[in-house]
């Protein structure tokens, strides 16, 4: 019988040598006359164990990792294909504590299935959400999504169902569904993992959105920095068309829906929904003023649903299992699960999907195991380059939209970047301004000019020039940016800056800096 092995195609696994491992596994199997099949799956998101090789045995899947090419021969010697014991043997992957503790709803199949097999997708519960959606009226689909409490996972946290309701009721045709896959926040990779590990769930979510609002065309706006994800999505779209999941008469229904993959060109601001729409239209990614909201006047001025990858990918399970099932996870107004991404200087980096409410400290220390360098944790930046830096004293903050907002922070797209005690928070504050200056679309003066002046002012503080005055100036500038910018780039860049100043004042104190140097 053919032995089946899983070796991830995920870019994170490839970055750690998965292709080389797969090549050596194939060569070793040929050498030893073993008949094997290698499935290139997504990643389960346990990156310190990548490349993780799994083998299907009589007792289920057995994982080994992290596997390097030079380990492969000894793995075969140890009876890899039968799940034999070896120093890299991890046992059943779903029993690994990091994974076992999670609630995988949106990521249920990621790392498990062959991402480009529709049969595998169906066998693991795929398409049932779409079937449920086709069996009910569009307004009932929207009611389910509203009732689930699902909020935008891109960062803003706006109720997904309300966007759909607005777009469905809006006058104008054609309507569009745009999937925002422009995952530019440092410390985030959930969209990428899903595009590479379970692309059909994104297509299914977009189909359901299209049916709900009456749209026939969708765009996935991805990034040029994600070539592997884009290749997988493009192939998934081709397969979906061939299987008549996309195109006229979706699954035999009267609905028509097709999706085009559009790749950006390295502009962070295009992750902002209106800039993204401009970019899809073929223009400079300059932010639009709202209102009108895209649900009323979006792509080419037509009613448009803009949702993040994770929001759309969470829809099929809501339709399949019911709004109440999803809503029962979480806390307060943050319902369901959040795919949290633990990144940077952390011992166990990876994807951790969990109900809202878990504390930041639990995430960083219990789940993440502290820093990778073994030094004390000093700060965690949550929510990407526009998110606040949290000191350890605030690690009891629960992962929840409102709890983070109350502390002048945001959970954003769910990225947590950990820093050890060697971090210089003044440098981080300066970087926040520099990044904003680099990526500003230029529309709003406070962002376009403020970010440049802000970086210069922090520079002066770092040199010890009139520190108190320049700190006051920085705060004043931050307020201007916050109040005077149309979008989150200029509006939220003050979060990392002010949190660094407020929670780590010692790094901005000239005397302290000079003494330390």
């Amino acid at each position: 019988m053919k032995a089946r092995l899983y070796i991830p195609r995920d870019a994170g696994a490839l970055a750690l040598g998965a292709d080389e491992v797969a090549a050596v596994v194939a060569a070793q199997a040929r050498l030893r006359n073993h008949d094997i099949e290698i499935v290139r799956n997504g990643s389960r998101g346990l990156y310190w164990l990548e490349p993780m090789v799994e083998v299907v045995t009589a007792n289920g899947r057995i994982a080994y990792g992290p596997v390097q090419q030079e380990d492969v021969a000894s793995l075969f010697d140890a009876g890899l294909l039968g799940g034999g014991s070896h120093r890299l043997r991890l046992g059943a992957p779903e029993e690994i504590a990091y994974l076992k503790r999670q609630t995988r709803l949106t990521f249920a199949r990621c790392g498990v299935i062959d991402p480009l097999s529709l049969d595998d997708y169906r066998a693991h519960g795929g398409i049932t959400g779409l079937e449920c959606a086709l069996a009910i009226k569009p307004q009932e689909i929207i009611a389910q999504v509203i009732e689930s409490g699902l909020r935008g996972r891109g960062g803003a946290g706006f109720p997904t169902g309300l966007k759909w309701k607005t777009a469905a009721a809006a006058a104008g045709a054609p309507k569009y569904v745009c999937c925002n896959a422009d995952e530019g926040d440092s410390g985030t990779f959930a969209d990428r993992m899903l595009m590479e590990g379970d692309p059909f769930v994104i297509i299914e979510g977009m189909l359901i959105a299209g049916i709900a609002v009456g749209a026939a065309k969708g765009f996935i706006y991805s990034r040029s920095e994600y070539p592997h994800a884009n290749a997988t999505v493009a192939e998934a779209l081709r397969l979906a068309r061939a299987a008549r999941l996309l195109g006229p008469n979706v699954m035999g229904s009267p609905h028509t829906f097709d999706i085009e993959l559009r790749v950006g060109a390295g502009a962070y601001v295009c992750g902002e929904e209106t800039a993204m729409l401009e970019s899809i239209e073929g223009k400079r990614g300059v932010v639009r003023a709202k209102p009108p909201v895209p649900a009323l006047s979006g792509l080419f001025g037509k009613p448009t649903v803009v949702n993040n990858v994770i929001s759309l990918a969470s829809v099929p399970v809501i339709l399949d299992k019911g709004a109440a099932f999803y809503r029962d996870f979480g806390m307060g107004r943050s319902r369901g699960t959040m795919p949290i991404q633990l990144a940077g200087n952390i011992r166990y980096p990876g994807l951790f999907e969990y109900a809202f409410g878990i504390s930041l400290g639990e995430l960083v220390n219990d789940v993440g195991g502290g820093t990778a360098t073994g030094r004390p944790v000093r700060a965690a930046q949550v929510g990407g380059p526009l998110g606040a830096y949290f000191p350890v004293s605030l690690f009891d903050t629960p992962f929840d939209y409102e709890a983070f907002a109350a502390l002048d922070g945001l959970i954003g797209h769910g990225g947590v970047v950990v820093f050890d005690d060697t971090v210089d928070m003044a440098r981080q504050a300066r970087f926040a301004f520099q990044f904003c200056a680099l990526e500003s679309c230029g529309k709003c003066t406070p962002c376009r000019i403020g970010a440049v002046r802000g970086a210069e002012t922090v520079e002066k503080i770092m040199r010890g020039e009139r520190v108190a005055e320049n700190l006051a100036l920085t705060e004043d500038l931050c307020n201007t940016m916050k109040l005077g910018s149309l979008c989150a780039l200029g509006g939220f860049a003050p979060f990392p800056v002010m949190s660094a100043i407020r929670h780590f004042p010692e790094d901005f104190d000239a005397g302290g800096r000079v003494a330390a140097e």
Partner: protein
Amino acid sequence: MSQTYEPWSAARAREIIASHLHQEGAALPMLHALQDTFGCVPRQALPLVAEALNISRAEAHGIVTFYHDFRDAPPGRHVLRLCRAEACQSMGADALAEAAQKKLGARFGETTSDGNLTIEPVYCLGLCACAPSAMLDGEPLGRASVEKIKKLLGVDA
């Protein structure tokens, strides 16, 4: 795997532009295709793009220059993109960037004098769980170091 590009040809550019005209908002797919072919968006292509999209040359110039990806000259035989964002910073990306520029012989945005390597900054490759990260000729590299990069480039470490 090094990349080779075609020399400028207006006929070839017209062909590429025409093949994308059916797309809604075709500018970005068009510009990507031009850069994939010529290694950059050649200055001579802009009037052709403008004409095809029925926009002014100034508008076409505005679109090309807005996006960090589009180059005005072809890169070296290899392109190294080093991540400069926070998750990679927390794992020493600044030091890596300094060392890489020094030891590989080009600053950010420059090509080595022998035309072998262009180094570009990038802000997040989504490889934040194996930082610091890089991308060499489109292939991802995790826990990157100058030694690893040199090995992949086939130059003596």
